[in-house]
């Protein structure tokens, strides 16, 4: 007997109808790279999958005014090769390039990455760094949350049952903004002990830091910007010493947010080094030597 059925939606409104059709326990299916494995482990997850991966309007990537909107069913490969995102959000391109291998990037979608919300989801730190908003629809309501509001904790989001994440949207950072994404860890879906950092920033005309955004993945229970790190940088002239100090602050903020855990032993020095390395590259100062992994 079939453990679950399959329907393919052609439009967003059809997907919402399917997802809320009584008599079924429905679940959206995008690239299937997470869901197929989840369903093997837990067949009770749903009794019908609603394929949203071929809905044309969920693949559009477009610039409207100063914002970029990315359809949730855009694959990592589509994002990596998209000229608009390459120009306006290269940090997201860098993050997507680190995902899996070609096969996973061809199938896996940004919407699935956000909706699944694994602690190690690579698009999340870049999206939070870009202050991205997520648009979620149900048959009767529309929600617009920041990505860090949307993700409550690992594998838990605010998307209501029967709801659909349709797109992600970010405001194009001012010109002169530079972003860096670094990932530490094996290229392996089962690798849970790994770290990512996303940093974005810009100098003013006097060479002082005018904008600093800093996020780490797999370091805190809820993905968020590290405000202490950012505050320590704003208005300062970037120096290697400032970057080293920011690295130390990042580790303190991580421990404050998630407590000292078994993994902190290795995460503390790794995060300090990755933070100062990423920020040094953003603000173009010599990378602190010796301390860096």
């Amino acid at each position, binding site marked *: 007997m079939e453990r679950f059925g399959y329907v393919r939606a052609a439009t967003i409104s059809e997907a919402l109808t399917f997802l809320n059709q009584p008599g079924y326990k429905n679940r959206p299916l995008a690239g299937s790279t997470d869901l*197929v494995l989840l369903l093997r482990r837990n067949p009770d997850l749903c009794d019908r999958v609603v394929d949203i991966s071929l809905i044309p309007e969920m693949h559009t990537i477009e610039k409207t005014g100063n914002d970029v909107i990315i359809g949730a069913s855009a694959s990592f490969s589509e994002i990596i090769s998209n000229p608009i995102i390459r120009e306006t959000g290269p940090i997201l391109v860098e993050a997507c390039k680190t995902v899996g*291998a070609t096969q996973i990037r061809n199938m896996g979608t940004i919407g699935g990455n956000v909706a699944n919300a694994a602690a190690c989801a690579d698009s999340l730190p870049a999206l939070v760094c870009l202050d991205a908003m997520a648009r979620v629809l149900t048959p009767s309501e529309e929600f617009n949350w920041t990505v860090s509001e949307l993700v409550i904790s690992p594998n838990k989001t605010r998307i209501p049952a029967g709801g659909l994440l349709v797109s992600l949207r970010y405001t194009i950072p001012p010109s002169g903004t530079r972003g860096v994404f670094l990932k530490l860890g094996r290229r392996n879906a089962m690798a849970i002990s790994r770290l990512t950092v996303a940093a974005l920033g810009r100098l003013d005309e006097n060479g002082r830091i005018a904008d600093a955004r800093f996020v780490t993945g797999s370091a805190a229970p809820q993905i968020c910007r590290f405000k202490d790190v950012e505050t320590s940088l704003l208005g300062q002239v970037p120096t290697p010493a400032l970057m080293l100090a920011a690295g130390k602050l990042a580790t303190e903020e991580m421990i404050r947010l998630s407590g000292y855990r078994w993994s902190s032993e290795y995460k503390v020095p790794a995060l300090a080094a990755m933070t100062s390395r990423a920020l040094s590259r953003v603000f173009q100062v010599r990378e602190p030597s010796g301390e860096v992994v």
Partner: protein
Amino acid sequence: MIFDLIVNEEPIHTEAPADISLLHFLRDHLKLTGTKEGCNVGECGACSVLLDGKLVNSCLILAAQANGRRVVTIEGIHAEDGGPNDLQQAFIEYGAVQCGFCIPGMVLAGEALLNSNINPTRAEIREAIAGNLCRCTGYQQIVDAIQATALKRQEKGRRD
């Protein structure tokens, strides 16, 4: 459910469960056993096929997702006379095949790369096969075979 799709240029019309992977559909229902099952969790690439021209892991995809679309498996890669094509020939010449288990996936990964990038660097070749594990060869010969084929196809392109 009813399946209507194109596999290796041939229209397929058949009935199969909605919940099976594309890998099992190919192997058990269509008896196309060239596509291998290694890990079944997306890590090894032995099950790689082309879906609408893109390299995917057939173990992670539902057969239903391929419905109405075009699939190419290793059985669909050959020369006009049915023998090995230039890439497969290069795998043989460069000693890139030992036990052979990874090879169907490797060849498809190579074809997917060469379809989009006719002049790949060695780094690009390594990146393109990063999702395909080989326990035997140490990869060098595989990279050599793909690179040699790229050069040959470029020459042929210039001649044609």
